[in-house]
């Protein structure tokens, strides 16, 4: 069964790159443009992994992650924070919000794919 990854990202270019990268790698993808939709999609679709941008409209990545991780049913879904908040303490903040991994923007598609494969070893 093909693994499903939820991409929460408001930048279209990033969505395109991720979509291209990950679909080529054999993952199913669902996409949300903001934190609120992201949480909703996570609830409805139960993805196997969530790539979470942090700076998002409506509900930011930290809050969205907190909501997901506070839901007993969603808690087990790994959340990788993908953020350009490259400032000191961003990673700690992301981890405090419940993120399982952290990838700083600008990410190298290869490195991101490697990170995804840590959690989902087989594309499907």
């Amino acid at each position: 069964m093909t693994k499903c990854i939820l991409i929460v990202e408001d930048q279209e270019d990033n969505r395109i790159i991720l979509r291209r990268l990950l679909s080529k790698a054999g993952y199913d993808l669902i996409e949300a443009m903001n934190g609120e939709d992201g949480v909703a999609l996570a609830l409805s679709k139960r993805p196997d992994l969530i790539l979470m941008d942090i700076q998002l409209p409506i509900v930011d990545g930290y809050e969205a992650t907190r909501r997901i991780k506070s839901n007993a049913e969603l808690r087990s879904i790994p959340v990788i924070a993908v953020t350009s908040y490259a400032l000191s303490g961003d990673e700690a903040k992301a981890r405090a919000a419940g993120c399982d991994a952290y990838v700083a923007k600008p990410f190298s598609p290869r490195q991101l794919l490697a990170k995804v494969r840590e959690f989902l070893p087989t594309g499907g």
Partner: protein
Amino acid sequence: MTALRTRMAATTSAASTLKRSSWRKVSILAASLRQCWSEAASKARRWRPNLLNKIRSTGSRRAGGLFRKYATLLVALVGGALIINAIIEMYYSYGESRHALIAVQREKAQGAAAVIEQFVKEIEGQIGWATGFLPAGSGLEQRRFDFLRLLRQAPAITEVSYLDGDGREQIRVSRLAMDALASGADLSQEPKFVEAKDKKRYLSPVYFRKESEPYLTLAITGTGRGAGVTVAEVNLKFIWDVISRMQVGKAGVAYVVDERGLLIAHPDIGMVLRKTDLSQLPHVALALRKLRDVHLDVPAISQDHAGHEVLTAYASIGSLNWLVFVDLPLSEALQPIYDSFRRTIIVLALGLAFAVLAGIWLAQRMAVPIRALAEGAARIGGGDLDHRIEIQSSDEVGTLADSFNEMGGRLKESYATLEQKVTDRTLELSEALDRLRALIEVSQAINSTLELRAVLAAILAHACRLAHAGGGAIYTFDDVTEEFSLAATHGMSAELIETIRATHPRLSDSSPIGQSTLTRSVIQVADLAAEPAYPLREALLRADVRALLAVPLLREEGIIGAFMVRRRRPGTFDQTIIELMQSFASQSALAIQNARLFQEIDEKSRQLEVASQHKSQFLANMSHELRTPLNAVLGYAELMQDGLYGELAPETKQVLERIQGNGNHLLGLINDVLDLSKIEAGQLVLSVDDYSVENVVQTVVSTTEPLAAAKKLPLKVDMSKDLPVGQGDERRITQVLLNLVGNAIKFTDAGEVRIAVTAVNGVFAFAIADTGPGIPDAERDRIFQEFHQLDSSNTKKKGGTGLGLAIAKRIVELHGGRLWVESELGEGSTFRLELPIRAEERGAVA
């Protein structure tokens, strides 16, 4: 005392200069004032007993000395006169007595000499007479008859004989033997004949008959040719009688010596019989010599044959060349002189005793009042100003005592006034001290609190207390509205405050506040009741205000406000109070100005903080906004490179690589600029946590190894075993090491890059050594500056932003460590990094 007075003067003048002087000076002044007070007190305590003792000791010593001095002087004067008198008297009386005695003795000697000479001359005359008429060859009977008659007439002649011109004895008539007629005995060789023939007269030495009676042979030559010599044996018993009868004192003697010094007559006949030769006695010898030589003095004092000292005088029996001596033992001769001396000495002793007694008495009489004077003066000097010296005398001492008594009285008076002065001064001093203390407290209040209201209230409270004012107020002035508003009040009723607030006092008002600030001077109203035109007069009078004093609050730049104190009783304010109020006013102005400045600074810093926050936000936003498109660029490039968009022509791939390279460079720039701006804004906060140096080095090595491998450079690691766990910002430390190792690889074309790590003295010591071109001395410090690279042409070739070392150095310093480089041109460089093992969280350091 002078010092005290000077400091007092300093205190009063201090109040006027306070406005200008700093508050530190004020506190120093207060301290010196306290010190001077205690010094003066302790000096006064020490001074009194000392002085008293000094006066006492001096007084008694001087009085005793005076008595001794007077007594000695008097005794010396009287005694000296007496002694000199006695000595002179004794000297002259001795001389006179001696001369008198000698004269008496000489008279006696001369008397005796005259008697003896007379005796001898008579005999000579009688012999001459008896023989004179008989011519040579006249009848023997006749001669015998004449001789018998001669014997009868001159009892001293014992025997008489006649020698003819040839020296033959013709006749001899004697009382003791048979007469001899024409015995014809040849006596021509006898001295009596020879000398008589030669000198007409011959005197033989004395001889003794029957060993008891002295005799003398007297031979006289008759007159005419062929005259014979008549020889008479003369008994000298007569001379002896003369001498013996002579009374010379008790033990004195008279005696006769002949021209050879042989004793002829002496009361002690034994001596004459022994034919004593006295020519060895000094006076006899001299007297004998004087018979021939007149230029001689015979001493009056000599020694007799027994060696006793004698007073001697003599007379010569001219025709006989005999000498009569009268000797008196010196002890006896001088006895009257000694008696006279003894009397003189007794008189002298009595005189001296009298002089001593009189001296003591007189000295006592002179010294006692002086001693009384000294003791009295000492008591007065010692502080017993009621003491009076009791001397009943009209002389100078009495006058002096009166002067002392008068002086004591005066001193007492001046002491009394002095005490009053001291009391006054003390009061002034304590008031001055009080003012100073108030000023100090005010200045402390200004310095310790920024709460303007509290400071002004404190100033006002002190000012009212010291000015004896029931109430007061401090107004601030608004430049725009030109109105005064109450900033602080003291002792004012709510009603009065409300009234004043409602009137909005203005600069142009005729009120003291307006007037004083307008004229920039102090204005006082001595009695409000006498000022009918005064604004708010009724309200103030209702509030029981009668006098007031307004002082302007001025700074260089203009009017700050006004200061006012009000009294319940009318009257003017003292100059000292006015000066004090001016000081308080300037303090108030300072406080208000300070408060305004602080407010301004506060406002500015708040604005700065907001600006800074904006900047931070802007940086964060910019960072994000710049990365997002860059992310897309790099992402697409990588996807294309990985063939996700189909196979690419080799040339396209090269272009894509260049796009990626430039994109990464831009990313590096963005990151570095962000880091640097955060550091400069003091916003770079280290997230300090435990870390493993091994892990950090491992990360660095694994990240940089591909770079080194690409240049075929060996990357060697030399790490001590068992390095302790470090504390610091792991990510930042990694960033620093990455930068240093990356640079080393970047600038080295051949050789090796070596990383060494040890832990010593509480620091991790890193050394990143390369075999690159090295760094010139001049550049060694500059490479740590922003945007600085050794060779700007290198930048493009080697990559890098020129910010890495600057950031690395700041990060190391934030950890409390240091970063420096050792290098030799052509040999390579070694970057050394010392990092505290346990770095404290230092927070944001610019």
